[in-house]
């Protein structure tokens, strides 16, 4: 168990302790304030170089990581994979070696292969690697920002602050994750974050969209979606990932919407104060009805805004906390 990500790579939430997660959430609180200033920049990572390597397409993760690095005054090297030597067949190892030769302190990377971030951290052990999503494995900053968003909303309701509450808001909180869990790295990171912080997590999906190893996860699998909706304090929806072949796992999109989509009728079964979350990008009309997205219970936009302070916190702890060759 990693007790703090200070000076370390962030590859997976599975290996993080509760204290390490709370430290990231608390640090992000300071950065929420920085992001409200008219000058949204602090010099914490001045002179550090962060490379952003997205081998798989992304809008919000890439933009929010790069925004976060810039607001910490780091220099950002951004590799546009589509127009790079990767297209000429350069291997991952050679691409990383080339970028490392330019002198970098951290790599933020996304790759379609599970375990790619871990592999890179072995190629360049002196560089901090932040996993921005690897295949179906993990998307740690998404898990952290989802937990941060939940804590933020609940703290506002209880008229307290994140720093005061620590992980208390998660104690006994009922979280339901619905949809394409098999192909989802977000689901794996969310489960790790919520369960470690003390929440009770249930999953609901057609059997074909559950991974084989689900029995080893700290969750309960349920099949009655309507009943689970009435139970939950937070409902996290996932995108049906057609690029990873989800289409072959459901009879049809309509059928999926009928059994596991959050329609307006289903949303009425939920507790009035329950939250609806979605990591984006959404397939409106498939896993979630457009009118539900735009309702006041959905905190999708807040999840996106919280991406910047969470990623600032991760970069700050991981990169600023590492002196030359020293492991803290």
């Amino acid at each position, binding site marked *: 168990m990693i007790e703090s990500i200070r000076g370390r790579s962030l590859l997976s939430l599975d290996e993080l302790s509760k204290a390490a997660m709370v430290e990231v959430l608390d640090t992000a609180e300071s950065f929420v*304030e920085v992001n409200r*200033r008219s000058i949204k920049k602090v010099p914490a990572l001045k002179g550090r170089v962060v490379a952003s390597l997205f081998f798989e397409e992304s809008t919000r993760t890439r933009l929010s990581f790069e925004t976060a690095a810039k607001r*910490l005054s780091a220099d950002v090297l951004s590799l546009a994979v589509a127009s790079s030597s990767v297209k000429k067949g350069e291997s991952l190892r050679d691409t990383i070696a080339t970028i490392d030769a330019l002198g970098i302190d951290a790599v933020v990377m996304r790759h379609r292969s599970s375990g790619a971030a871990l592999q890179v951290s072995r190629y360049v052990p002196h560089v901090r690697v932040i996993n921005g999503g690897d295949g179906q494995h993990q998307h740690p900053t998404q898990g952290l920002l989802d937990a941060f968003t939940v804590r933020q909303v609940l703290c506002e309701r209880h008229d307290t602050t994140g720093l005061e509450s620590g992980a208390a808001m998660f104690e006994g909180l009922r979280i339901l994750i619905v949809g394409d869990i098999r192909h989802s790295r977000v689901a794996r990171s969310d489960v790790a974050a919520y369960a470690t912080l003390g929440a009770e997590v249930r999953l609901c999906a057609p059997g074909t969209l559950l991974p084989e190893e689900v029995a080893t996860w700290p969750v309960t699998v349920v099949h009655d979606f309507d009943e689970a909706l009435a139970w939950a304090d937070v409902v996290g929806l996932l995108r049906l990932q057609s690029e990873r072949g989800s289409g072959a796992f459901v009879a049809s999109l309509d059928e999926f919407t009928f059994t596991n989509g959050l329609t307006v009728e289903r949303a009425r079964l939920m507790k009035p104060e329950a939250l609806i979350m979605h990591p984006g990008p959404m397939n409106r009309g498939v896993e979630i009805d457009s009118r539900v997205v735009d309702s006041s219970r959905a905190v999708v936009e807040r999840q996106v805004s919280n991406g910047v302070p969470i990623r600032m916190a991760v970069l700050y702890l991981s990169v600023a906390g590492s002196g030359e060759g020293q492991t803290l």
Partner: protein
Amino acid sequence: MGNEDERQARTRGLAFTAKSQLMTTDDVTRAVRRMAHEIVERNHDVASLSIIGLQTGGTAPASALASILTEVSGQSVSAGVLDVSFYRDDLSRNPLPTSSATDIDHDLTDRTVVLVDDVLFTGRTIRAALNALSDWGRPRAVQLAVLVDRGHRELPIRPDYVGKNLPTSKDEAIVATLEGVWIGTREGS
């Protein structure tokens, strides 16, 4: 134990063992009151003052100063708190300090800022605070008030208002709050 170690010890909350008490609560209360009067003497336009306490040791003295200033002048005095963790010049050399919140709800341009801290030592925290302040506007002037000046400056920084000058050795640790001032040692030194 060097200066930076001492700062780290403070931010990590290492146990402090007091050797002797140098100021009582009454002493500190009188010193703060005197500093407030000195501030009014030098700054006739109290309404344009912003009293900014540095996290975490400077926040209580800053709000004490602000309330005395309000009481003495009859005008309300703006106050705020500033966290300088992200502006330190030693982030890569030491374990990160724990950050806490900044709360300044007004533009500092053309105001006279009085920075308040508990102990003035190397001057590096104040250097970081001056950098941070520039992100909040361009103050007309910046002044510095501290409960205790213990010497050993590493930068050309001097206080404008001092509760008490305490010559110390670098190995000693000082704790200065509104409740009193103590000299002693930190765990592990």
